[in-house]
């Protein structure tokens, strides 16, 4: 009998002890929490201005139209992120909860000073997920962007999140980067980070007026350009074409548009369905060089003009033109980044992997070495299909 009680006690004890294992956690009701969907960081004279966008559940899901905005913005100045976040309780009735943070926007000036403290906070603090996107405000402050209402999505940060994600998938004119990738790019020796830019076009005069927003033709918040970083510090911008080149060079294009344009050909637009970048490091005359072979598969989607696309040689011509376009995008991107001395392509890593001994000698001076790194780009463009019709319908009539 005694041993039976002993056993029961042992089982109970081990169960009770289990409950001590669950670490730091706390029970909080949904309606005591304010869910932060976006955070913005700007530099001020005294320190940091943190802007926090919190969704307003009542306004978002209400059946009736409520005279409330779908998001609420809080700002707080300070020097320390956690302190600012906590201090917001003095303004907001609910505790800030960062578990659903979707986008983090850096002001340009803030990014120039370095974003490492923010990244450290996000990776160290337990409540954050790692799947938020990062962006840099171009020509404005993060605060301004977060204060702006957007179209279609009621939640501006949701809009930013979705358009970053989908444009990364089908447009390739920017780079959606998440926490882990960003941190890896920063801490890696032979690599640098690039974060997409966000711009305010034609900011509405009356910010809170939803009617004014509806009258606008263009969404006020647009994704544009790419911010290039050296370590954790912002260096400069590259434009859309250069950004495409960057994505081609890193093999990051999953779907985009390609085009061939000349007097003879007219303008032919293609949907790029598959790309692949083979990157190799080589040694030529005691100097390292990089060879990138880019394979692009594309389908013709739109033909402007009367060019006969049913002929094999004409197709080859189109392929060549399109390949040249991609090549020029790549080279443009290389020229610009070499100017900045920022290897955002990870070529340094490539050399590190192929020639580890040599890497040790250039490791500390990679930024300079990169400026003089010869990179040869070869594009192999393949048109797989021309769509269900051969030549444009209108060709015959014209002849």
């Amino acid at each position: 009998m005694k041993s039976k009680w002993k056993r029961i006690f042992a089982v109970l004890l081990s169960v009770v002890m289990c409950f001590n294992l669950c670490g730091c956690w706390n029970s909080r009701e949904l309606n005591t929490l304010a869910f932060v969907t976006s955070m913005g960081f700007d530099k001020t004279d005294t320190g940091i201005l943190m802007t926090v966008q919190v969704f307003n559940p009542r306004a978002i899901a209400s059946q009736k139209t409520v005279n409330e905005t779908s998001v609420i913005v809080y700002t707080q100045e300070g020097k320390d992120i956690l302190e600012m976040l906590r201090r917001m309780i003095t303004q907001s009735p609910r505790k800030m909860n960062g578990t659903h943070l979707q986008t983090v926007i850096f002001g340009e000036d803030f990014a120039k000073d370095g974003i490492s403290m923010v990244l450290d906070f996000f990776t160290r603090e337990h409540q954050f997920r790692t799947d938020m996107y990062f962006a840099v405000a171009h020509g404005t402050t993060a605060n301004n962007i977060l204060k702006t209402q957007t179209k279609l999505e009621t939640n501006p940060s949701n809009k930013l999140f979705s358009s970053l994600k989908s444009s990364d998938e089908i447009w390739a004119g920017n780079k959606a980067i998440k926490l882990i990738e960003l941190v890896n790019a920063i801490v890696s020796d032979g690599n640098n980070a690039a974060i997409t830019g966000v711009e305010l076009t034609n900011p509405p005069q009356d910010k809170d007026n939803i009617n004014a927003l509806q009258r606008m033709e263009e969404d006020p918040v647009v994704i544009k350009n790419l911010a290039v970083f050296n370590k954790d510090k912002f260096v400069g911008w590259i434009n859309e074409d250069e950004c495409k080149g960057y994505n081609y060079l890193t093999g990051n294009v999953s779907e985009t548009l390609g085009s061939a344009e000349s007097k003879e050909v007219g303008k032919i637009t293609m949907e790029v369905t598959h790309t692949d970048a083979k990157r190799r490091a080589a040694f030529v005359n005691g100097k390292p060089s990089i060879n990138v072979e880019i394979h692009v598969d594309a389908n013709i989607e739109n033909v402007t003009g009367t060019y006969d696309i049913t002929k094999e040689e004409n197709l080859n011509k189109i392929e060549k033109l399109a390949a040249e376009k991609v090549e020029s995008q790549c080279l443009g991107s290389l020229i610009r980044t070499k100017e900045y001395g920022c290897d955002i392509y990870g070529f340094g890593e490539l050399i590190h992997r192929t020639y580890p001994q040599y890497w040790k000698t250039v490791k500390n001076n990679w930024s300079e070495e990169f400026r003089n790194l010869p990179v040869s780009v070869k594009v192999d463009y393949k048109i797989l299909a021309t769509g269900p019709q051969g030549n444009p319908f209108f060709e015959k009539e014209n002849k």
Partner: protein
Amino acid sequence: MGKNGISSSISENLKQITNTIGNDLDFTVRVFDILLNKHVLKGAVIFINGMADTNKLNSLSMELNETILSQTWDGLTLEDCFIKLKTSLLCQVKVSVGSDSETIYEEVLSGNTILLLDGMDRYLILNTIGPDGRSITESTSQTIIRGPKEAFTEKLTVNITLIRRIIKAKSLKIEKMSIGNLTKTNVAILYLDQIAKEEMLNEVRTRLKNIKVDSILDSGYIEEYIKDDPNSIFPTILNSERPDAVAGNLLEGKIAVLVDGSPYVLTVPAFFIDFMQVSEDYYHHYIISSFIRLLRYVALILTLIVPAFYIALTTFHQEMIPTTLLVSIAAQREGVPFPAFVEVFLMEIIFEILREAGIRMPRAVGSAISIVGALVLGQAAVQAGIISAFIVIIVSITAITSFAIPNYEMSNAVRIIRFGFMILSTCFGLFGVFIGLVLLTLHLSKLKSLGIPYMTPLAPANVQENKDALIRFPLWKMRYRPRMISKAKTPRVQTEPPVSSEQSKNQEIY
């Protein structure tokens, strides 16, 4: 004939019996005279009106009358008369001879008729046990779409017949015993000789014999007394209202316990998977049956943890909810005065009350409860902002899924455990839920039914027996009976399907 034998004087006997049974409301004594050798020989018939079958009594009395009035009595001895009566009545009902005074009461009280003859210290027991009671109807608590619809009745003999009609084998053995000092309830053990294991049979016999109680009113009493772990909430004895289900179990080597007065037949051993199966599974196509079985397990898991998960996710792990879903949940929680736990608990309790009320209520007011349940508790409570609409969905999911568990006892067990999970998740979040799941698994693995692990064939894993567990293999693939239960080693299926694939390909009949 010992001290318990009856006296040879009929008046003394009648006096004693009348005194003991002591009422004349249904207790009937009919006295008749036989003219034997110029003497009057007194005889008496005793029965209980209502317990004895009226039809049988009528034909008996006609036969008795004819026999008495026949002219062939002269010259017979008393013994001869007794035998003459016995043989003449034998053509109407089953007749046996008794001499014990105690047996008279037992026989009379169970509906038999006793014939006493003056001067004899023996009596005739005429089998007039009463009408069949309720006729065989469709099963009400275990309904099916396809398959035999007959259900057991309260009458033991009828129930045995129902099984015998399915299994017409001489190896179907029946053992009878009576349990209950006052109710003297007849209990029968049914099994298939050669297939049921002897040790299990002995175990059932011993357990039944050890029951020492006044009354057995339903098979539920027996179940509670012979259960392996009486404190476990999980049923370890299967009850069924359906003869085909019981026959199926018998054919696997299980043992059935039939209780007079209860339309629910017990079968032992019963495993966890048995409570998630219905006999209909074998009547449909095996792919469909397998799908439905898996569906039931999904339902089981859902009904167990959906409310707990909701509490855990909304109060502890908001990061696990997709952002858009979180927005809509948060919007509904807006302005709701109670914490999520109170909300869920309230609604679950109300649902359980609604369910209980629905069972007990007279049919005539049945519609009232659905109106109150659906409109007042569902819609109005949400509109009034007392609970959030999401809770109504959660409670509905648990309700619907709990009905998908085919066995009522299992469904009840899960209902209770669900509340435990809700408390765990309120205190410890998902961590608590998983601790609960671990404890539940431990408990289930510990349970036994008639000494065989409850989770068979999942926990002592057995590939062969898993052919009829979570999914159902085609019938011809289940060649052997479950080895844990049955002792017969011969295959129960001899052939592949008689239509071979080649046949169905080549043979064309115009």
